């Protein structure tokens, strides 16, 4: 079933939205692979296309205004984009679990937690009510909800934000999916609760062996959680590399700027590096490189021609006219 050890193989995915402002190319030619048991991080700022990428994988884009224009999403040897809707429904929630940023809007406020959890295994695994209930309790215990047997019959509003996110994780993992997609799972939570949730995802990943796609804007979060990283900007993959490599030797001016603009808690006070300008308006992208107007390295060619996706080494790619130069600079600094 699998293709050369990859659980997921995304090729040239394009998702566009028709708006009054014209066609917004939210995701424009995104490709990546995810190996079994690995965690892939997708980093980007708002409007970079990271969430639309994730929604496109399971065809959750509202049509209209959105449409997946082209591409392939090969999950265990089958292209999800070509499957009949009924087949996709068997994958969603069963083979691929998802958690979203806002645990309150992702849970039905009128349904007890128990029913929301039971629904999944009754549907996908053919559990009886009894089985589903017991399984749900087991799942809640696994994600660390105290008094799971009592609390399972409560409503979402009776849970705190962190506990709701735990419920979401329990739900996503109910059918032992091969892949868990977590879209900003800790962003809406407080710092100490964020640490709890990330730690939980890490532990569960080790226990269940599921692969994870972690989508976030926080470079700190991906640093300790992921094996591979993709940096997105204006619907494009700007850089792709193993996590340690990408942090140590960024080969793209945007990634480098992003890394430098995060204040280091151990660093002295001083002027923080800042990327000038505004995030791109994806409906009106400039000619050439979309990052050129904000880029400290930009030259004429950047404003004229779309940059190539340069291979820097076996696993490291960067979308930049000067990728090799930037990479060489980073390699020097990290060696020093």
């Amino acid at each position, binding site marked *: 079933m699998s293709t050369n050890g990859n659980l997921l193989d995304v090729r040239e995915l394009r998702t566009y939205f028709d708006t009054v402002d014209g066609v917004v190319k939210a995701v424009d030619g995104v490709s990546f692979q995810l190996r079994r048991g690995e965690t892939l991080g997708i980093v980007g*700022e*708002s409007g970079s296309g990271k969430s639309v990428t994730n929604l496109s994988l399971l065809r959750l884009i509202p049509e209209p205004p959105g449409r997946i224009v082209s591409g392939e999403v090969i999950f265990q040897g089958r292209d999800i984009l070509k499957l009949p809707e009924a087949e996709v429904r068997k994958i969603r929630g069963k083979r691929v679990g998802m958690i979203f940023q806002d645990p309150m809007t992702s849970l039905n406020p009128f349904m007890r937690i128990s029913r929301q959890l039971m629904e999944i295994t009754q549907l996908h695994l053919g559990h009886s009510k009894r089985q589903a209930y017991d399984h749900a309790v087991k799942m809640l215990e696994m994600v660390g909800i105290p008094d799971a047997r009592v609390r399972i019959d409560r409503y979402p509003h009776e849970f*705190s934000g*962190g*506990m709701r996110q735990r419920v979401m994780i329990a739900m996503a993992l109910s059918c032992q999916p091969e892949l868990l997609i977590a879209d900003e799972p800790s962003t809406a939570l*407080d*710092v*100490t*609760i*964020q*640490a*709890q949730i*990330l*730690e939980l995802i890490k532990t569960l990943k080790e226990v269940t062996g599921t692969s994870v796609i972690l989508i976030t*804007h*926080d*470079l*700190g*979060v991906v*640093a*300790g*959680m992921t094996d591979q990283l993709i940096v997105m900007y204006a619907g494009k993959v700007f850089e792709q590399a193993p*996590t*340690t490599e990408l*942090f140590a030797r960024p080969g793209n001016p945007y990634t480098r*700027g*992003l*890394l430098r*603009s*995060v*204040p*280091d*808690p*151990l*660093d*002295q*006070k001083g*002027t*923080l*590096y*800042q*990327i*000038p300008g*505004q*995030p791109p308006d994806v409906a009106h992208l400039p000619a050439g490189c979309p990052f050129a107007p*904000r880029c400290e390295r930009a030259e004429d060619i950047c404003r004229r021609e779309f940059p190539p996706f340069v291979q820097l080494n076996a696993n490291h790619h960067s979308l930049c006219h000067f990728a090799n130069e930037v990479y060489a600079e980073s390699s020097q600094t990290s060696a020093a």
Partner: protein
Amino acid sequence: MSTHESNLNTHAPVPAQRREPLVSVRGLKVYYDSGVRRGGTVKAVDGVDLEILEGETLGLVGESGCGKSSLGRAILRLTEPTAGEVFYRETDVARLSTRQLRKQRRHMQIIFQDPYASLNPRMTVGQIVGEPLSTYGILSGKAASARVEELLETVGLNRRFINRYPHEFSGGQRQRIGIARALAIEPEFIVADEPISALDVSIQAQIMNLLEKLRREKNLTYLFIAHDLRAIRHVSDRVAVMYLGKLVEVAPAHDIYLEPLMPYTKALISAVPVPNPEIELKRERIVLQGDVPSPINPPTGCRFHTRCPYVIDACTRVIPPLVEIKTNHFAACIRISPEHPDIDKIAPGEAPGLATAEAANSPKLPNQRKPV
């Protein structure tokens, strides 16, 4: 008016001895009624003593519901304090009449978290930024427009934007508009209530740098409220950590990050993910158990005792006062004392700060403590 000032003050650090408290908060309490049926009171701020020195940025951190915004708003009296004093220089803001308060507010402004909700969508940028000028009768007509244009430039916006509406701007630009509005009447003190939380990473850096530049140029004093410890560390001279309505640690920013003393601060700092895989993969993170308890019915004694890895019996009954454990470094924990500041070196069950705490718990004069 702002231009010649900026020429004078650029890069001039404020000498330490010149620093007087600009704002002194004593015994401040902010309680909210939580509704008839539920009964009970939300003790959002429950007895805070704090000084904000002239020219400094005091960072105030804590998790949601800890009372940090209530404290900030009560200082400006945007929320009525339930008890306590808020001195702005010699004026007790908490006791001013509405009319006096209005005058007072010329010196004190606020920047809000949500750049989308804090600007009136039906007003142009010129009207928004110019409103304080007309409210205070400072400038009108052409002079006001000129001043607004100058302000826009100060915060890094194009003067041509003056007739545009908020929806035409991005989040970061809107936050700049909010900052321009706060600066319009040349305040001395600004409460920045989570000014960067709603912004993208690359824009956060821009806004932090802008605030820092303005502070230097205009000799401003900030109370910078945030839950992001990385940002707080970067912008602040001193940091105050709040938990469930009380300050639990106050210290120079440098010290609090290198040597947090109180267990909650330790956990908070440990929880911050660092953008460096090598550090992240190696370090042992302190993961706190459980959630923040409800401020309607906060735990007895030390409010952190329900989640504290170092808890002992006495913690459940004695309220720890803020004690100066090291020079300028205050922490509220009975398990440490100036003689024994490192909680990890304290023998199990020992509480060297217990006597001080019990003494502070008994007298009827809680406000006589030296504010930090």
